[in-house]
């Protein structure tokens, strides 16, 4: 049996075109996402935080979170965000320079976890808050791979586990969307409110006392922007506080451009299927004709 060169070339061209479409070649434009008009958020100002951790206790209480004991069972003693802890205060100390930093979900404007999640267990719902729906989650943990801030945590110690993350106290009794951490902070180091107001507030603080701060609002543009904004002490860059340097591109952008380029309207796969079917059919016809020969 000889190879039909023309068929072979056509086939290779077809597969090649599909493969090329699957690569970076056919990136289409992707609309820049903005926070919804009623977006809520938080603003954390490291110059005001005294590291009292009242917010950590209040968060546990408001969200009914279990105790993460220290080895002697004396304290609730989380060493990082984990399946029992949605909010934590960390300490940065280098020589004379000391700063605290509060970590919890950043409520990204264009979140990696939402882009990752297969059937929308993680989604931006009311007020742009990124929330988790146990009715849809299969526990694949792709959100953990996709989050640049390492926020979603998994209940590793449970046979029936959940994903745990800050949801801006959306289910708080009598006070939905009224984050307990902000309520108890004795120094208003963290405040909550409308995202647009907070962004203005942050800009004002920077303008009023430029000597106090690093000249940047983390989250204004980082990774496509976040609804939780941060100000850092002068001399303490955000990298030192554990924030990744993401640039302004949203985390899911590259992957989604590729997915969209290939699968928009499901046209490429459908066309490829028809081409493949036609080539196989043609080849088989040729084959049976040959077989029919004596």
């Amino acid at each position, binding site marked *: 049996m000889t190879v039909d060169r023309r068929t072979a070339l056509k086939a290779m061209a077809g597969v090649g075109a599909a493969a090329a479409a699957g*690569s970076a070649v056919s990136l289409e434009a992707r609309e820049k996402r903005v926070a919804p008009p009623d977006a809520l958020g938080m603003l954390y100002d490291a110059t005001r935080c005294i590291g009292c951790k009242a917010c950590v206790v209040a968060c546990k209480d408001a969200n009914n979170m279990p105790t993460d004991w220290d080895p002697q069972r004396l304290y609730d003693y989380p060493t990082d965000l984990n399946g029992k802890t949605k909010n934590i205060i960390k300490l940065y100390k280098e020589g004379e320079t000391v700063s605290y930093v509060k970590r919890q979900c950043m409520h990204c404007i264009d979140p990696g976890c939402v882009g990752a999640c297969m*059937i929308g267990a993680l989604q931006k719902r009311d007020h742009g808050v990124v929330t988790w729906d146990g009715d849809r989650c*299969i526990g*694949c943990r792709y959100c953990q791979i996709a989050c640049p801030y390492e926020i979603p945590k*998994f209940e590793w110690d449970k046979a029936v586990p959940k994903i745990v993350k800050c949801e801006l106290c959306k289910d708080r009794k009598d006070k939905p969307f009224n984050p307990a951490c902000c309520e108890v902070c004795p120094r208003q180091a963290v405040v909550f409110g409308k995202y647009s107001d907070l962004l203005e507030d942050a800009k004002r603080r920077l303008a009023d006392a430029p000597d106090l701060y690093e000249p940047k609002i983390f989250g204004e543009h980082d990774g496509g922007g976040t609804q939780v904004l941060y100000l850092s002490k002068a001399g303490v860059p955000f990298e030192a506080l554990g924030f*990744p340097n993401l640039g302004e591109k949203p985390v*899911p952008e590259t*992957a989604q451009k590729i997915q969209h380029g290939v699968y928009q309207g499901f046209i490429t*796969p459908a066309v490829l299927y028809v081409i493949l079917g036609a080539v196989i059919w043609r080849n*088989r016809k040729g084959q049976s004709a040959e077989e029919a020969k004596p």
Partner: protein
Amino acid sequence: MSAHLEATPVGGPILTRPFKWLLAVFGVGVLLLAWRFLAGLGATTALNDGYAWGIWIAFDVVTGTALGCGGYAVAILVYILNKGVYHPLVRPAILTSALGYSMAGFAIVVDVGRYWWIYRIPMRFWQWNLNSALLEVALCVMAYVIVLWLELSPAFMEKWKVEAPLPILKSLSTALHPVINKLMIFIVALGLLLPTMHQSSLGTVMLLAGHKLHALWNTPFIPLLFLISVIAMGYAVVVLEGSLASHFFKRERETEMLGRLSGVMVVVLSLYLVLRFADLIWRGALGAAFTSGWMSVFFWIETALSVAPLVMLASKAGRLDPVVQFRAALFMLLGGTLYRFNSYLIGFDPGEGISYFPSVPEMFITFGIVALEIMLYIVIVKRFPILAGAPKKA
């Protein structure tokens, strides 16, 4: 499809000594699985919030489906490039693919934390997040498992038409065999489309890791690289399987055909390597291959394993030497496997102080799954017409 008719069952006893060993390994895996489902993932694995995916994903799923691409790679040759000469390789290749993909699907059930909702992924189409590369992988893999067993079903029907353990199987096989043969063209085309989609998307998946994935592997071309390398791996799997089957079942070895197949693998692998390095140079990431400590070491091991088959198969004498064929295929598979481990685990760095090395139960559950796969392979080729070629003359 006359070549299929030449396939015959290998025959012989099932419960041989090696088979009993495999059964023991599988038994250990079953016990550990029970523990995993009762106590949860934390108690049984080394997985953590930083390394949320371990060897069950990097090996069982990502590498497992790549090793299961023999059927795909050979089908491209036979059905698209019209190289009918390779037809005797189709059935054994489809069998290893069907087993590999089924085991990958099983590993996913073991790995996900909330497996009881898995059925909602295909069912709740109105909730699909079409932006998610993982959704596409999940749907395609589920569909492809069905397609592979349909592609293989004539092998079972051919036998059951003549003698079946149940009368119903006999009448069903007699009735369905002509139907499936008529529909086969649509099934085969799907069998070519689905791996093209999900094997590339398996690369896209890791693009969301963003800054956590090292520059040596983090490229917008990762889908294309995954796709091309999986085709080369597919040919290597077929060569390896052909060699092992002829050795263990004492059948004539198709050395010449496997040699030609090795030649095809060289072409695909060369294309992969050219693209791999062109991408590194284009992104200005090649320097990282010398300055990234352990990451550089793993990159060069991966590269050496992938270049080795090219060197070994450069001469015609090499391509026609069964030992060289076997070794080259083995290096190809190791290189492709390391590329996947690098992209999913080794090149993935969630931050300082977080580490992962698979726990003993994780490894033994994987061994158990592989043992089950081999046992099923043995049972099926001994009882059903899969392998072509005559028994070796003494």
